[in-house]
């Protein structure tokens, strides 16, 4: 089986079949990243082509020191953020999250975890949503987010905490359902207790 490095080399040389192979393998993942960060399906479609073009252009910068899937994930995030900036969707990065009491509707189809979170995240301000997705979903540090979005690490934290607090309200039904079903609360209570000397676990 051909290695990622070999396929990438061929793609860099302009081999259309290699490019198609990379696209076939990674499009579901890249599309998921673009969809999530864009928040809006139409916008995601608009910027997906540019993101892929940028990925193909950036292929020579993959050194092979990270897995190709990891690299392409990172590039996809970076290029999506660039594209979003260019359509001015991140202009209000530091704005205060508007208050609303909307609660994500629950129905059979929307109980899927990813869909519920995506839907709830769409109700955040663009900047807060991006910070939340980068930190809690993608695992970026606040320093990385700050560098990526041109804000301070403190600003990133502030946005994150506001986003989490709002999402907690928006996702209340889902949270209750999960806690009731799988005992997740007990799991986290135990974890909390371990982290803080058992104070809470003892209650």
């Amino acid at each position, binding site marked *: 089986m051909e290695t990622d490095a070999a396929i990438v080399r061929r793609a860099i040389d*302009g081999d259309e079949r290699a490019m198609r192979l990379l696209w076939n393998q990674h499009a579901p*993942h890249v599309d*998921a990243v673009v*969809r999530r960060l864009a928040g809006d399906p139409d916008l995601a479609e608009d910027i997906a082509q540019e993101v892929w073009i940028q990925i193909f252009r950036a292929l020579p910068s993959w050194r092979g020191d990270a897995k190709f899937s990891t690299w392409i994930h990172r590039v996809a995030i970076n290029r999506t953020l660039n594209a979003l900036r260019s359509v001015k969707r991140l*202009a209000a990065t*530091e704005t205060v999250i508007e208050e609303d009491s909307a609660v994500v509707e629950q129905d059979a189809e929307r109980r899927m975890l990813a869909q519920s979170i995506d839907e709830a995240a769409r109700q955040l301000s663009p900047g807060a949503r991006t910070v939340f997705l980068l930190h809690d*979903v993608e695992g970026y540090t606040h320093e990385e987010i700050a560098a990526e979005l041109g804000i301070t690490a403190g600003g990133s934290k502030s946005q994150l905490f506001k986003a989490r607090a709002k999402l907690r309200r928006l*996702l209340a039904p889902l949270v209750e359902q999960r806690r009731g079903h799988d005992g997740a609360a007990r799991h*986290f209570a135990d974890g909390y207790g371990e982290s803080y000397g058992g104070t*809470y676990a003892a209650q």
Partner: protein
Amino acid sequence: MQPSSPHLAAERLAAFDENPLSAGELAHLAVCAECRTEYEAVVEVVAMAGALGAQLPSPDAPRLVEFDAILAGVGRSEAALAGASWATGEENAAATRHVQRPGADTPAAKAPRRVVAPRWRQAAAALLLVSGGAVLGRVTSLAAPIGASVALAGAGSDARRASATPVSLAARPFADETYGSVEQATIALNEAQREYERASLWLASNDTTMRDPEVFRARLAALDQMMEASRVALRDAPQDPVLNHYYLAAYSAREATLQALSSALPVDKIIERY
């Protein structure tokens, strides 16, 4: 046992992993069921978000964009970067089959390379500097039409003379130049692009007016308009090398201008909008 202190704020609880709760806050949490519920809920939200990141996307999900569209986009970029060398129908067809620039069969061309060389982008930015300058009225004394930059591209070996005598260049009608073949026009275009590159580098180190953020903002607004106009035109003629060249040049110039604007602003300022 009743809580002896006010409830913990939602945002405070949401910071549980960044700013550990104090002893007092822990004590409150221990006796306040309401805050404990809130705490557990926000931890659950964070855990769900983490699970979302680890979740594998469905391979059956509809694609946001088809591969052929991506390939066409990559081909457009390559075509413009190759000096519009895909101007013929035959070469256009080749571009859609195999995204490879002419001469890519040579060993040197097979070596890993940056698909978009920074120097080309600088050249493209310089192209827009000329045309953008016309839009902004920065070269109004020359009475140059917007097409002057294209005339410059077509001027070929005249480009160097033209740079020394811009008035005559501005007065040159847009379509006055003729070429014997596509190859000849391509050579002329490439030569002019190298001239743009030199001009761009010179301007980068000598043009002190470029430190004014207002100039950058005005240019960005103009570039946005130019990109939009190019985009509309490309819908009708997606393979047109001149339109692609304009679009890519505007895009490159916009990126370069955003970077320049960042460096021109005070260190404590960030670009949020313009």
